[in-house]
């Protein structure tokens, strides 16, 4: 493929790709997201390949291994185009029938389509399934349509048109203005306005500036960034290049997970393809703008997702955070201005540039704009990745998309933001998905990982679990975090073991207060959040453990004995 040298050539190329596509040609899109992979979809893919060979259909049918479709609970998912028939929980044994009945015979196989467990209603297409219905899948909706390893698939759906628009029809100031007006807030957990951050880096002194994709995603229960980045790497990359152009950066970094091979592979392929096509490297699209990207891997510690720790890690040093009285956007990697945004934040940029800030800010609530990817997990019928407009109520997410709580259990709490987030009780689930509303309730949207807890979960044990997790993930550099976690964990372990005593709750609150105020980085300062939110809403459970030596959820082993 030749290097593309102008916006016009890009459009020519796109036309060429589109002209080759036959809209009526059957295409089998098989989800190759991480959960479907875990369910053995590689065997499903090979079965399709073999069957197509057997029936000599190689030229008549296309196969596409795609990114995550979102409905992980029912994987492996297969969508047959052009009819968009959606089959769930497909096994290799189903494959010959799918080819002969559906692909060739154009008949729907009843047992493979979605059946509503409550009403028995069937859904042939993805958009009719309650899990998908009413989602706004602006970011992740293209996943079933593209092979993440093919830049041509991304170009076919209009990819890199925002980059061309930014480079040739706008100057960096105009792009910045658009992002600011859109009020895009950081999706990694902080919710800080991305435009202001970009502006700080852009205006910071020094010629050399860096842009970074934080694809560390270390929170247990968070898998939306992985789904998005693995499934559509060019979308994130396009956002990053636009950001670099705006900020005046010529070097970018992707900091990502070492333990997700498919993610790493897809990023590497996307980078080399973008380079080959002239969308990355020297003189991008003939605009004179140069930009390169390097990939770095986390090596398995949660704190390395913290911005300053992450930057140390890119320098090859141990990932210890530093105080942030000087922001990393002013002094980051090698003390140069470094703008870090999360995967989803960057992925939002192309659509803002393409459709304008006015369109973007029409979606969402007053202060939280756009859509949000949510990874829904825990005691929920439909685990998966959901994308909804900001402002959607938690109740809708749990019941309409998540399908409610399995096994007839009662909902107890919703926990956001993993070990640094907070829990809110069932009584507050009418609250909207909104950075500020959730933070006022004592939780935080975090990166969008929503853990649903049923009545069998003990809130003391859950807090203990989070602290146990964090005790292994803190870097140990500052005393409040290092010692605070240890002491809180010890006290909570005692309580769950039935050794809690009067005054323990007050002691926990006191230590939590100190750690929250005095720790060095945002990890340390957020450590007490789950505990404090639980003390706020579930204090009676803590008191029952201590005073009555009773675990109301009948979870804690030591206390269960007394109960029985």
């Amino acid at each position, binding site marked *: 493929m030749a290097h593309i040298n102008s916006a016009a050539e890009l459009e020519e190329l796109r036309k060429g790709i589109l002209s080759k596509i036959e809209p009526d040609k059957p295409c089998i899109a098989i989800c190759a997201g991480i959960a479907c992979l875990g369910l053995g979809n590689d065997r499903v893919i090979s079965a399709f390949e073999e069957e197509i060979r057997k029936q000599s259909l190689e030229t008549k049918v296309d196969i596409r291994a795609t990114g995550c479709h979102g409905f992980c609970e029912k994987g492996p998912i297969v969508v047959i185009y052009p009819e968009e028939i959606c089959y769930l929980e497909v096994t290799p044994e189903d494959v010959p029938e799918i080819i002969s009945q559906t692909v060739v015979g154009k008949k729907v196989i009843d047992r493979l389509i979605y059946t509503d467990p409550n009403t028995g209603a069937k859904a042939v297409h993805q958009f009719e399934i309650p899990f998908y219905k009413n989602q706004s899948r602006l970011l992740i909706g293209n996943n079933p349509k593209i092979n993440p390893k093919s830049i041509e698939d991304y170009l076919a759906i209009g990819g890199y048109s925002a980059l061309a628009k930014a480079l040739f029809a706008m100057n960096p100031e105009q792009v910045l203005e658009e992002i600011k007006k859109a009020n895009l807030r950081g999706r990694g957990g902080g919710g800080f306005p991305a435009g202001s951050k970009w502006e700080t880096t852009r205006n910071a002194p020094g010629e050399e500036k860096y842009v970074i994709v934080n694809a560390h995603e270390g929170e247990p229960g968070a898998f939306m960034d992985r789904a998005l980045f693995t499934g559509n790497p060019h979308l994130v990359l396009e956002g990053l290049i636009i950001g670099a152009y705006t900020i005046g950066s010529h070097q970018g970094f992707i900091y990502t997970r070492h333990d997700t091979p498919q993610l790493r592979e897809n990023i590497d392929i996307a980078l080399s393809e973008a380079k080959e096509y002239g969308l990355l490297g020297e003189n991008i699209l003939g605009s004179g703008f140069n930009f390169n990207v390097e990939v770095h891997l986390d090596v398995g510690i949660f704190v390395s997702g913290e911005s300053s720790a992450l930057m140390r890690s890119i320098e090859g040093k141990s990932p210890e955070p530093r105080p942030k009285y000087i922001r990393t956007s002013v002094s980051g990697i090698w003390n140069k201005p470094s703008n870090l945004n999360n995967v989803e934040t960057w992925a939002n940029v192309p659509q803002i540039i393409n459709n304008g800030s006015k369109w973007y800010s029409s979606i969402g609530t007053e202060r939280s704009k756009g859509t949000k990817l949510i990874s829904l*997990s825990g005691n929920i019928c439909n685990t998966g990745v959901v994308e909804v407009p900001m402002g959607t109520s938690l109740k809708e997410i749990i019941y309409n998309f998540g399908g409610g709580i399995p096994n007839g259990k009662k909902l107890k709490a919703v926990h956001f933001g993993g070990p640094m987030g907070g829990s809110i009780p069932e009584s507050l689930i009418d609250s909207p998905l909104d950075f500020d509303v959730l933070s006022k309730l004592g939780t935080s949207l975090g990166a969008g990982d929503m853990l649903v807890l049923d009545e069998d979960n003990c809130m003391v044990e859950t807090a203990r679990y989070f602290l146990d997790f964090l005790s292994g993930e803190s870097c140990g550099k500052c005393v409040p975090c290092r010692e605070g976690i240890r002491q809180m964990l010890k006290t909570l372990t005692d309580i769950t073991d039935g050794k809690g005593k009067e005054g323990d709750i007050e002691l926990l609150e006191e230590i939590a207060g100190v750690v929250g105020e005095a720790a060095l980085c945002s990890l340390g300062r957020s450590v007490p959040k789950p505990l404090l939110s639980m003390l706020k809403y579930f204090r009676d459970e803590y008191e029952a453990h201590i005073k009555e030596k009773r675990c109301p959820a009948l979870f804690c082993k030591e206390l269960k004995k007394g109960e029985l």
Partner: protein
Amino acid sequence: MDNDRIEQILNEHQGQAGSLIKVLMEIQEQNHWLPREVLVEVSEKLEVPLSRVLRIATFYKTFSLTPKGRHEIHVCTGTACKVRGAQRVLDEVQELTGIKPGETDSDLKFSLETVNCQGCCSLGPMIEVDGKTHSKISPAEIADALKKYE
């Protein structure tokens, strides 16, 4: 691991102190552990003090300074797997292999680790052996799953 490959990795990054983590990562992925003499060589080639190499190699959980078993078992103890019974799964794996997380058995058959979240929460509780996922596994099914590994 053949020394040529280590040599190749080191030569690619010779004199680049900033590549320390990358280099250790590549060696760990291919060799599954970091022998001391390799760390000494890393220190010399990248011109990084051995103390810093050791600090990085011991700080990150991914790096191992002892040999690993032929099969690596990863039990996910992320929140979603936890609420679906990961602890009972972990207890059973420990019972069957006789080792705790972070340990390797004496005949170097299995190494056991817990992992925080593999991102496939719909499959929980799950264990991974040599990268192969055993999803929605119950404690009773584990003995059968581990039997296959020699």
